[in-house]
């Protein structure tokens, strides 16, 4: 049986990295959406 401290140490480290990767991916997709929206609005404003 795996030592509980060993298991917890590895589990916590992977959880931290996964949460951080998820947060990066969320920030990235939010900014990409915002940029596309702004680009469309800028083009529309330039056309008027």
């Amino acid at each position, binding site marked *: 049986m795996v030592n509980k401290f*060993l298991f917890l*140490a590895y589990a916590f480290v992977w959880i931290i990295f996964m949460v*951080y990767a998820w947060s*990066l991916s969320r920030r990235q997709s939010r*900014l990409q959406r915002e*940029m596309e929206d*702004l680009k469309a609005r800028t083009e529309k404003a330039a056309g008027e």
Partner: protein
Amino acid sequence: MVKKFPMSIHLGVALAWMVIALYLIFLYAPEELTMGEVQRIFYIHFSLAMTALFAYFFVFVGSIGYLWKRSRASDDFAHASAEVGFIYCCGVLITGPLWAKPAWGIWWAWDARLTSTFILWLLYIAYLMLRAYVTNPGRTESLAAVVGALGFITSIVDYMAIRWWRTQHPQPVIGGGEGSGLEPRMWITVFVTWGAFLCLFFYLVRVRLGIARLRREVTRLRQELVAT
């Protein structure tokens, strides 16, 4: 050089390297005689700690680059290194007590090494809070550079703490003098694991740099829209 190494390949290399490291940690490295299998925490604890210390070196280099040449890219690099370094430092402060409890019988001791690591973690928080809440262009970057330099000095003290003072924390395995060191298979495991965590560090820094570029582009587009 960065363009020649696509992000997807970088991520693939980091993950494959991590799988190899895990294989070495659990199936290749021998079991330590006194601590048993709990000693295997050492491999990630050491790798996270060394990378967190190196991250402050990168913060320092980026900060100097900004102060010297007012280079936006250097400042972005410092900021990204600090954020990813903070994640690594959190890992150090979690794996440390989880190793200390079975090894020493206590979760924590306020000795020089542990205390300086805790201060380093607080400095990472200070740096990131400064970046998030002080929004005075130019001044934020300069103030952050000062905190970054302070963090770099602390990281040197943290690294040297077990060499300068008697601590609860074990004596160094690298450059620790006579009686220090590891079994050859343990050395291989240590360096492969550290390499994997460094590779992952640079991947995460690159992703974070991409986000900084996107944010700047969004700000520029917003200003353009207001101007029209």
